[in-house]
């Protein structure tokens, strides 16, 4: 199996993963999805590093990926704490709510139009409220043993 062919295949997958993560980070507005996209970019870089490490028959690629995983873990901890704090303050995960930390002289971003959902939204499971007596039929009550 040709090592150069393997390297090129991996670099292509890594670059695609990085580019997709960057796309998602820039076009999505949900804080949690943006966090996932940042992790995806790190995965793309890790793939490239491992491929280079194998190509050069060297341990450094894998060492760097171990450190990337460590830093990603730190990032995940802080990012989730930040998401929690921001969501508590603004009441939603929308990053547009934090645009008043922008530079002076920049226009605020305002949604021009909010399109309706293209597909029917799925039915979310609901919990039955507890402690409420069900409405019962009077005739049913006679037959009941209760």
């Amino acid at each position, binding site marked *: 199996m*040709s090592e150069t062919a393997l390297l090129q295949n991996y670099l292509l997958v890594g670059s695609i993963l990085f580019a997709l993560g960057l796309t998602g980070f*820039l*076009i999505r507005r949900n804080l949690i999805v943006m966090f996932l996209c940042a992790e995806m970019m790190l995965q793309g870089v890790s793939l490239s590093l491992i491929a280079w490490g194998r190509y*050069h028959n060297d341990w450094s690629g*894998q060492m760097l*990926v171990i*450190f990337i995983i*460590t830093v990603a873990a730190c990032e995940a901890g802080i990012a989730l*704490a930040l998401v929690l704090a921001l969501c508590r303050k603004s009441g939603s995960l929308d990053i547009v709510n934090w645009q008043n930390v922008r530079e002076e002289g920049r226009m605020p971003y305002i949604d021009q139009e909010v399109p309706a959902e293209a597909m029917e939204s799925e039915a979310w499971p609901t919990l039955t409220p507890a402690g409420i007596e069900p409405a019962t039929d009077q005739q049913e009550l006679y037959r009941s043993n209760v």
Partner: protein
Amino acid sequence: MNGCWLLAAATDSSSAWAELGSKLSGTEGRAIIGWALAVLALWLIGPNSSLSRKIAGAVFGVLGLGVFWSFVPAMSFLPAESVFLLLAGLTIFSAVATISARSPVYSAIWFACSLLGTAGLFLFQGAQFLGIATIAVYAGAIVVTFLFVLMLAQPEGHAFFDRVSWGKSPRAVIPVVTMAIVSLIAYQFGKSDIRNHVKAEELVNQTVAELAGPDAAVRKVVHHQDGDVTVLEVDVVANEEALSKLEDSKSELQRSIGERIPDWSKCVVDFHAGTDVRTADHVAHLGGQLFGANLIGVEVAGCLLMMALVGALVVAGLDEEKKPGATAR
């Protein structure tokens, strides 16, 4: 503009079509086609797209990936190639689904699938520890993220900000820029120098497989130009006997490389006895490297983790609520 082109095509159709075909199948043409297809796919697979648009986007995406993969050489071993393509396909499909899922719950699930694919790709490269570590570390992170999603986003159902982006034009322009990265990298692989290298490596592989037996393996091939002579440095994992056999048949290999690759007519091959990173006790060696050459890095990473832990507690602001008289936000 369009009419002119049609006219030219009509008057001299056969040669114009041939010229157009050769331009599009050339390296630049293919890079641009792959770029356009990938951008179209990402534009169609938006979070608020209907099912038919998503399917159309998936078709364009597969076509674009096919164009990009026409730049890289095949691995010349069918089982390895198919396993790789399966894992890469899983990774890329789940990554696209992550950024295009409307609900963050599905985004998190698709991201977990993408991580499984990446871990498989790590194992495929022989990085056993990292494959397992990715699953172990990220699985925990994803479960926590999942809880966050359920806690923060689920009660309201689908939020409007998950289906709108920053307006229409950024949503169209951003894929153009990001897919240009992929397209440029694929374009680099089409360069003649890299193609020659791959061809030469296959010839070296064949020679080593024929002469040195199944246990020997070519670990590393690098080349550099010395005047008009191309010097090929080959690291081989083999015993003494096989190495001397290879040294004896060097001139034949050099001649066949010179014949097959016109740009490298003068070629010198140097065989070196190499070591293999992918040894049987791979993880033990990795640990030796980690706690030997990278010991300071490990200590710094440990400090970073500790600081991140403290920082996360401070940022989350858990202690503020316990203060008497703290105002509700």
